[in-house]
Structure formats: C-alpha cells, structure tokens
C-alpha cells in the first residue's frame, strides 16, 4: 500500500472510533480496540516504508524514520491500553459516561498521531497543545477532588510551559526571515536549511525556549511537576497513554531542534544542557521513588527517570547514544504500559493507591502477579529485558565520550539507587503472604492478554536486537547529524 493510504488509515481509524462512541454509544470498547488493531500494523508498515523523509497532503504531514518510530511507539501503547481499558473501565464507573471516555481516548491517540506527523513547526505546536486539551478531560474523568486538582495543575503548568516553546518558534521564524525573506513556511526540513545561516543568537534562544517548553511536556526535571499528579489520578489506561506515548511525542520536537543546532555547528553546549536536564530527571526520579507511597505516583516518577535516560542518550549523542535513546523509547513505552496495567488492576483489587496496604499480591492477583513482577524487574534495567540493552548502550555512549565520563558514572549510580528503591517496594508487596485477601474485583482476561504480550516483547527485545532496527537507527542518526 502506498504511504498516503497508510496515513489516511492511521488517522481515520481513531476518528471513526470517536464518531462511533459519540453516535452509536454501544460496543464502543470493541470499536476502539478494532481501531487500535488497525493502527498498530499500519504504523509498522509506515515505518518500514519511510526510507526517505517525505511530505504529504499539501505540505501538512511529514513522515521520516524518526517520526514514524515515535508513531509506532504511540500505536503500541494505544493497542495495549485499549485491551486493558475494556477490563479496567468496567469497574465502578457510570455506564452513562463510558462513551465519552472512549471518544476522548481515541481522540487522544489521534492527536498524538497527528502531532508526530506534523510538517510545520507551528502545526506541531498546535498538535502538542491539542493533546493537552484532550488529555485534561481524561485526567479529570473520575471527577474526584484529587483528579480535578491534577487536571487543573496539568493544564495550567503545561499550557504556560508550552507557550515558551511558541516564543521559541517565533524567534526561529524571525531568524529565518534574514535568510529567506519575510514570508516563508517554517517546517522541519526548512529549519535544517536555515539554521546554519540565521543569526546564531536567535537559533540559540529558539533552541533553549523549545527545550524548556517541550521539556515541560516531556516531563524533564525540573519542569516535571505536573507529571506525578496527572499520571496518578487519571484512569490507568490513560496513565499508560500519557506516560508511554505522550512523553515521546514531546521528546520528538526536542530532538529535532537539537539536530538543527548540530547541523548549524553550535557544538556541544546544547547537548550539555540536555544532559544536565537528563541527570536532574534521574535524581528527582531516584529520590521520589525511594520514599513514595502511592503506587501510580511511583510509576510516574519512574517515567521522569526514563525520560531522563532518553535525554541523556540524545545528549551524549554519537551513534551509540542515539541508538540507545531510540531503543529506550520503544522499550519504555511497552514496559510502562505493562506497569500501569498491573497498577490499575491492583488499585481496583485493593481499593487503594497506597503501596503500604497492598500486600500478598501473588495470592490476590494470581494470573498477572508474575507478569507484573517481570515488568518491575525489567523497568529497573535488569537483564534479560529490553531496557537493559538500551540503558547499557546509553551508558557506554556516555563513557566513551571523554568529557562526559563522570556523568556516566553518576548515571550508573542513580540507576542502582532506583533499582534498589523500586524493587524494595515490590518485595514488600509480594512477600507478606499472611495478609488478608482484598475484596475488590479480580483482573480479567483483557488485563492478562496485554501484559503477556508486553512481557514477551520485552524479553524478545532484550535477547535479540533486530538487525533492521540497527539499519533504521543508523539512518536516523545520520539524519540528526550524529553519525559523524
């Protein structure tokens, strides 16, 4: 199939699901799952076909390997979360409001697809802003005081932050007018052309503002403050989408701006700043995971940590750094979805978010307990799972660069701290076998299927690095100017 057909399918499937949920209002969970089942293979197909960057639909959409890679991560999370939503949304919700949930859920996926394919930088900004608008309603969906609070903080912090990115875009456009004249179209490929020729100060300011603005959305510390609230208070499928898919979409923008400064020959300082943010995220993640009591908040801080790892990978740069960061995007997407699925089931089963009250998990949730534990081991970066490989290659990338060796050592130490802190919580949840069994509903088969799929995928990605990925990552690294 040709690429335009694939793009239309990718964008039409979630939209049809939205329409179905709003108009028919029955069986919407199945239609949503069907849409996700269409999107996943289509996104892979699109990724395979994206050998060269292409512009489609009257300059509106831009598909290259990097964008298609992020698209595929979104589609994976959308699929796994759609399975789980069928189970999760049965418990304790008003049936009357379910259609609006599924409509928003599919629309959220659609906005993320659209944002990762946007060609013009302004449209990308609008796409990211649209993801915020849609997901606000999903975070506040349960209408408890806590979820309202989380939704309010989310929209205020993120819209404030993202306006800094808009200012950055205006400054970059201004810089371009010195090269191309007062009116032109600022898209991703033009940015790389004008970056070397525009006044250096405007490129630097534009990059910094884009980094801070999209960094808010990507959850890089110290701009992460909305993230733990939003991720812990939405329904679990939404948390998975926010954490596994949305953060990558914002990271995509940061990486593209970083590439423009590389192409313009601004040297190492943009990378240094990204590395600093990455280390800050790891520190924040490590400290808050250690003393966390809320199960989903702990997973949210783990997302801050993993965004830090990805930022470090792109910050260290070079082939290994970029390879590691890209591989980590996919691994983290799958793994964090797995963790949130387990967490959502546990919250229903135990009727609380408090880690201290969750004891004796293997007896309480026999079918999924060991899959969840495997996910917990994987997310701390232990072998033989995919995250071990990606974190290792980021680590080696930092070690091999002379100037960043101490950063690599610090990175390793923080990973060890997180390993201990994270698994200690799980140890306490799993070993106390004499605790009374909780009363809540048991997880069903639609929880078990995505968890099994995710663990299998993580295991495969950990044992075997697909050669095709090496080829794709090589192309992306070349495109980002990191190959030299």
């Amino acid at each position, binding site marked *: 199939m040709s690429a335009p057909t694939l793009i239309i399918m990718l964008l039409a499937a979630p939209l049809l699901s939205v329409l179905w949920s709003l108009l028919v209002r029955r069986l919407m969970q199945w239609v949503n799952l069907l849409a996700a089942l269409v999107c996943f293979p289509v996104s892979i197909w699109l990724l395979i076909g994206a050998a060269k960057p292409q512009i489609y639909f009257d300059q509106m959409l831009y598909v290259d390997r990097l964008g298609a890679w992020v698209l595929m991560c979104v589609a994976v999370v959308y699929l796994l979360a759609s399975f789980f939503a069928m189970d999760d949304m049965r418990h304790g919700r008003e049936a009357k409001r379910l259609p609006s949930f599924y409509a928003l859920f599919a629309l959220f996926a659609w906005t993320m697809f659209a944002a990762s394919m946007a060609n013009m930088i302004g449209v990308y900004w609008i796409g990211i802003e649209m993801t915020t608008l849609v997901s606000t309603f999903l975070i506040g969906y349960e*209408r408890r005081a806590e979820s*309202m*609070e989380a*939704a309010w903080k989310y929209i205020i912090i993120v819209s*404030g932050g993202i*306006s800094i990115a808009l200012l950055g875009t*205006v400054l970059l456009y*201004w810089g371009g007018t010195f090269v191309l004249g007062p*009116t032109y179209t600022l898209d991703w490929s033009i940015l790389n052309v004008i970056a070397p020729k525009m006044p250096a*100060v405007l490129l630097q300011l534009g990059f910094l503002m884009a980094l801070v603005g999209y960094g808010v959305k990507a959850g890089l510390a110290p701009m992460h403050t909305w993230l733990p609230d939003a991720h812990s208070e939405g329904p679990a499928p939404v948390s998975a989408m926010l954490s596994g898919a949305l953060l990558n979409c914002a990271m995509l923008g940061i990486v593209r701006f970083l590439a423009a400064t590389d192409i313009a020959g601004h040297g190492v300082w943009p990378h240094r700043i990204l590395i600093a943010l990455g280390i800050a995220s790891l520190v924040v993640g490590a400290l808050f995971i250690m003393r966390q009591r809320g199960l989903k908040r702990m997973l949210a801080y783990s997302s801050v940590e993993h965004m830090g790892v990805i930022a470090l990978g792109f910050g260290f740069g070079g082939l290994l750094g970029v390879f590691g960061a890209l591989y980590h995007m996919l691994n983290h997407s799958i793994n964090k979805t797995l963790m949130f699925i387990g967490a959502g089931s546990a919250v229903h089963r135990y009727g609380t978010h408090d880690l201290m009250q969750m004891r004796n998990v293997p007896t309480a949730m026999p079918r999924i307990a060991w899959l969840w534990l495997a996910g917990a081991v994987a997310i701390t970066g232990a072998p033989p799972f995919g995250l071990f490989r990606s974190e290792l290659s980021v680590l080696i990338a930092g070690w091999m660069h002379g100037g960043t060796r101490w950063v690599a050592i610090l990175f390793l130490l923080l990973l060890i701290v997180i390993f201990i802190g994270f698994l200690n919580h799980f140890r306490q949840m799993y070993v106390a076998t004499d605790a009374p069994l909780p009363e809540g509903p048991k997880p069903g088969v639609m929880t078990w299927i995505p968890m099994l799929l995710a663990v299998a995928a993580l295991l495969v990605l950990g044992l075997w690095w697909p050669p095709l990925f090496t080829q794709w990552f090589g192309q992306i690294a070349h495109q980002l100017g990191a190959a030299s």
Partner: protein
Amino acid sequence: MIALHLSPLLASIFSLIVIGALVLSFVMLGSRWLMDYMLAFAVQSWLIAILSALMAWTGGYTELYFVAVLTALFRGLVLPLMLLWVLKRLHVNRELHEVVRPSTALVLGAVLVIFSMVVAYRIGHAVDIETRGVVLALTVMLSIMLIGFLMLAIRREAVSSILGILMLENGIFLGSQILVPGMPLMIELVLLFDLLVAVTCFVVLVWYLMASVGATGSQALQKLVG
C-alpha cells in the same frame, strides 16, 4: 523587516500602542480585583488588534486584517464575556490570599521590564538591528510574557491563573505582529481557535473545582504532594 522603514508618525503610533499594552499588564499586577484583570486583558487585546490592522495597512500584509478582526472578536470580546460569566457565578471578586502585595508586585514587574530591555538590546546588537522599533517590540514581548508568569506565580485565584496565561500569549502575539508579520495566516488562525478551546477547557475546570473542592484558589490544591 517592516519596522525598519516607517515614517516618524507611524513609528510613534506603533510605539504608543506597544507601550500601552505593556502598561495594561501593570494594571493586572497593581490591582487585586478580578474585574480589573479582565478589563485590562480585553483592552490589551483590542490594542493588539489595532496593531495588526495598522501592520496590515502599512506593510501590505492583507492576511493581517483577518487576524485583527479575529483577535478583536475572540480575545477582545468572546473571552472577556466568558470570563465575566464565570466571575458572576463564582462569588469571588478579589484576590483573598496575597502572596505578594500589589505594590511589591509592581516593583517586581519593573525589574522584569528592565531585564527584558537588557536582553532585547543584546539580541538587537547580535543580529545587527538596533532599530528602536525592533528593540521595543522585543522588550515588550518579553516583559508581557514574564509578567504573565509572575501573575501565575503570585496570584492564587483560578481566574487569575487563566488571565496570566492569556496575557503571556498576548505578549507573543504582540511581538510576532511586529517581528514576523509574514508568518503564515493559518498558524495565526489556529492559534486563535486553539485559545478558544483552551478557555472552554478552563471554564469547565473552574466549575469542576467549584463542585468538588469548594473553592477556586490554588491554595486549596494541596492533596497531591510528593
């Protein structure tokens, strides 16, 4: 760059409008009445609309006429009316918990303007355009943005937060009219549309907060920490 070759009269009018917009943002800092904030925002939006129209007329950017109409309509009329509607139902008409007193806030705002001016001069120097118009536009754009962030930091009412964000976006609009009047029409259109959606979202959230938290100040939002 249109701001480079303007007749003295037009240049003065531009400067007047731009500085007027800056002064209006100080109205927000200096008052504690929510109605004042709303009015200051509305007038600021009208000034920006006039600026767009003038820009369109002098520079021949016909698209900007459309932007001017939309700015006046949405940001100057619809948004203030929606906020008015919310204000009438909130039964909160002033800031109750002051983090920083209005007089101190004014001084802080002045410091931010001086900072913006230094930055603007640096940028102007680096890109070899030290025209007064460009430096002024940059100064005002950065100042309004920073004052918007200051509002977000020191005011606690939900409506003040909304207005803080709207104002910092006003700063970007104002700056982009002068610095990059040729930025494609579609972007500007969607920005206006997007803002409308954002405010709808905000209005809903204020209602949610009312229903469940019982207050609309952010000091009530203390449940989620750590």
